[in-house]
C-alpha cells in the first residue's frame, strides 16, 4: 500500500500563553491503521488532532503526511478530511449539497459529483434523505451526513473528533461498528479522538493514551488492558476500573495498607500500588488462602454483579457472575500472581519483581462458577 497516508508527528508541542495543551509528543501512524487518541477531558486530544488537520498551528515540532512536511500547510492542502463532534453541517444546504460541498469547492465536474454522491449516499444509507435540510434529520442521520462528507472527498486519511458523543448508547454501538466497517472497507487511515474507553477498545487497532498533553501509553488495546504502563493507564482502561491499592512495608514483604496479615508482594513494592482488575479477583471462603475481606455491597447489572469488598481501609470492586447475594459476609480474596500489576511510587509499571501466588490455592476452580460456592 502506498505510503501517502502515513502520518508522523515529531516532538510536536502546542502552547497557549500559560497552558501547554500538547507537550512534546511523537508518534507514527502507518497507512490503514485505526488509531485512537484516548484520554480524559482537557488532555490535549482535540488539539493534537487539530494540529494534524492544520486548524491549529503547532508551536514547535514537525508533522509529516506521506513524504511531505505539512507543518505549515493550510488544511485544504493536507489531503485529509475530518468529522467534527458537532458535525459542522451547513444548516441552509440540503443533505446532498452538504455532501458535495467539498467537491464543488474543488471544482469537480458536475457529472462526477453526481456519480460520487450516489455511491456515497448508498454506502451510508442516506439515499432517501438527500433533499432534506439537516434540521430535519435525526442525530444518527446527521452523523452519517458528516461521515459521507468526509468519505466523498476520497482522501486516504480521516480524522474524527468524538463523532459519536452526541448519540444515545444504542445508536453509538451501531455507529461504532459502521464506522469500523467503512474504515476497513475503504482502507482509510483513521485517527479517532474519544474519551470513551469502550470505543477505544472496540474500534482501535492501536490506542494512544494521553494525560496532561503527554503520551502515557501507545499500544494495541490488548497491551493497554493487559500491561498498563502506569497506574493512570490502569485506571482508565476497563470498566469497572482496575483496583489500585497502596502497598506498605509489612514484616516480610509488602502488604495492603490496613491489612498487615497477608503478604501480597515483595518488600520492594512497598510505597507503590498494587493493581488488580475486578474480573481477576475470586471470592473464596473466609478461611482459604488470600486476603481477608468483607463484602459491603453489591450492584447487580444483569449479566454480572459488581461486589464492593472491604480490605483494610480500602474498598475493592469485584466482578462476579450471576446474582450471588453475599453482602455482609466475610470472605477471602484470591488472585493469580500473573494477574496483578505493580506500580512504583510515581505510578509507573514495574515488572522486575518476582511474584508468587497465595500459598497453596485449594483447587483450581474456573472463575465464574467459583463464585458463591462457599456459602454452605
Amino acid at each position, binding site marked *: 500500500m502506498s505510503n501517502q497516508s502515513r502520518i508522523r508527528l515529531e516532538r510536536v508541542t502546542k502552547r497557549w500563553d500559560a497552558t501547554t495543551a500538547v507537550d512534546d509528543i511523537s508518534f507514527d501512524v502507518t497507512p490503514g491503521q485505526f488509531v485512537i487518541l484516548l484520554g480524559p477531558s482537557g488532555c490535549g486530544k482535540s488539539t493534537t488532532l487539530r494540529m494534524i*488537520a*492544520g*486548524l491549529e498551528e503547532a508551536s514547535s515540532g514537525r508533522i509529516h503526511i506521506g513524504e511531505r512536511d505539512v507543518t505549515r500547510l*493550510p*488544511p*485544504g*492542502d493536507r489531503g*485529509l*478530511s*475530518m468529522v*467534527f463532534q*458537532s458535525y*459542522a453541517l*451547513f*444548516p*441552509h*444546504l440540503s443533505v446532498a449539497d452538504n455532501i458535495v*460541498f*467539498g467537491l*464543488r*469547492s*474543488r471544482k469537480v465536474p458536475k457529472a462526477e459529483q453526481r456519480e460520487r454522491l450516489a455511491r456515497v449516499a448508498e454506502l451510508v444509507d442516506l439515499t432517501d434523505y438527500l433533499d432534506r*435540510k439537516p434540521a430535519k434529520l435525526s442525530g444518527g442521520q446527521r452523523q452519517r451526513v458528516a461521515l459521507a*462528507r468526509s468519505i466523498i*472527498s476520497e482522501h486516504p486519511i480521516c480524522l474524527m473528533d468524538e463523532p459519536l458523543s452526541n448519540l444515545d448508547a444504542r445508536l453509538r454501538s451501531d455507529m461504532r461498528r459502521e464506522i469500523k466497517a467503512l474504515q476497513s472497507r475503504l482502507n482509510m487511515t483513521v485517527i479517532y479522538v474519544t474519551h470513551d474507553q469502550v470505543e477505544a477498545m472496540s474500534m482501535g487497532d492501536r490506542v494512544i493514551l494521553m494525560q496532561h498533553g503527554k503520551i502515557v501509553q501507545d499500544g494495541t488495546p490488548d497491551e493497554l488492558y493487559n500491561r498498563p504502563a502506569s497506574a493512570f493507564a490502569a485506571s482508565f482502561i476497563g470498566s469497572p476500573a482496575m483496583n489500585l491499592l497502596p502497598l506498605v512495608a509489612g514484616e516480610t514483604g509488602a502488604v495492603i495498607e490496613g491489612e498487615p496479615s497477608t503478604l501480597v508482594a515483595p518488600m520492594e513494592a512497598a510505597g507503590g500500588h498494587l493493581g488488580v482488575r475486578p474480573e481477576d479477583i475470586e471470592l473464596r471462603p473466609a478461611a482459604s488462602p488470600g486476603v481477608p475481606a468483607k463484602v459491603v455491597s453489591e450492584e447487580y447489572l444483569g449479566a454480572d454483579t459488581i461486589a464492593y469488598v472491604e480490605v483494610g481501609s480500602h474498598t475493592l470492586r469485584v466482578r462476579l457472575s450471576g446474582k450471588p447475594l453475599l453482602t455482609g459476609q466475610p470472605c477471602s480474596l484470591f488472585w493469580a500472581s500473573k494477574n496483578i500489576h505493580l506500580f512504583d511510587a510515581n505510578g509507573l509499571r514495574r515488572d522486575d519483581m518476582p511474584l508468587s501466588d497465595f500459598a497453596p490455592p485449594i483447587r483450581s476452580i474456573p472463575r465464574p462458577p467459583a463464585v458463591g460456592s462457599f456459602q454452605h
Partner: protein
Amino acid sequence: MSLTAYHKMQLYGALLLLPAAVLLTTFAYLPTITTVINSLFLPGFRGAPTEFVGLENYQVLFDDPTFWKVARNNLIYAIGTIPTSIALALCMALFVNGKLRGRGVVRMAYFTPTILPMIAAANIWMFFYAPQIGLFNQLLGILGFSGVNWLGDPSVALGSVIAMSVWKEAGFFMIFYLAALQSMPPELKEASDLEGTSRWHFFWRVTFPLLMPTTLFVLINALINAVRVVDHLFILTKGGPNNATNLLLYYVYENAFSFFDGTTAATITVVILLVLAVVATLKFTILDRRTHYQ
C-alpha cells in the same frame, strides 16, 4: 355569576393583552385612523364646519409637482443609502470579526456614529461641509481643487445628505451583522477550510445565506429609516436649496408646522403608510419564504 374555566382563560388572556393594546391604540391606531379621516376632509375656515371631500386631497397632492419632487428625492435617498450602508455594515462586520489587533477599538470606532445623537452628528458634518472653512473644501484646497458648495449646490446637496446618513447608519447595522457572525459556529469555517474552499466561495455559499435573516431585518430597518428622516435635514439643509434635499417626512413636517396645512400633511402621511405597508407585505410573503431561519 360563575365563569367557566374556558371563559376565565379568555379573560386572563385578554387582561394580559390589555396594556399593549391600550398603548398601541392610543399612540398608533387612533392617530392613524384620525390621520386617514383628516385626509378625507377639508378644514372649514372661520368656524365653518369641515367638509368631506373624499379623495380630492389626494388628487390635489398628486397634481403637486413639489410632492413628486420630494417623493423622487426620497427614492434617490433610499437607493443611495440602503444598499451602501448595508454593504458597508457587512464589510465592517466581517473585518472586525476577524483576528485583528485592537479590534475592540475598531468596533468601538465603527459604532460611535450610532451612539451620537442625530443633531450632534449633523453638526459635525456641518463642519465638514461648510463652504469656506469646511474640512472637505480645505482638503480639496490642499490638493489644488476649487471647493464645492456641498449643501448649497442643488446637484450635490442630496448626495451630501446621503453620505452623512450612510456614515451614521452603517455602524448601527454592523452591530447586527457582528452579532450574527459571532453566533455562527466556527466549525463551519473549519470544515470548509479542510476542503480548501476559498474565502470568496465560503462567503457566498455559507456566510451570506446564513446572514440572510439579519440582512432582511436590517433592510426593513433601513427602509423605515429612509422615510423617517427629519432631523438631519433640519440641521443641514432645511430641505433646500429649492427642495433639492427635501424628503417626505420633512415635507410632512413643513406642511404641518410651517404652512399649518394639516390636511396635506395627513394626506402625505397616509401615502407613506401605504407604501410601507406594501413593502412589509412583500417582506413577509416573498422574502421570508426564501430565507433560511435557524
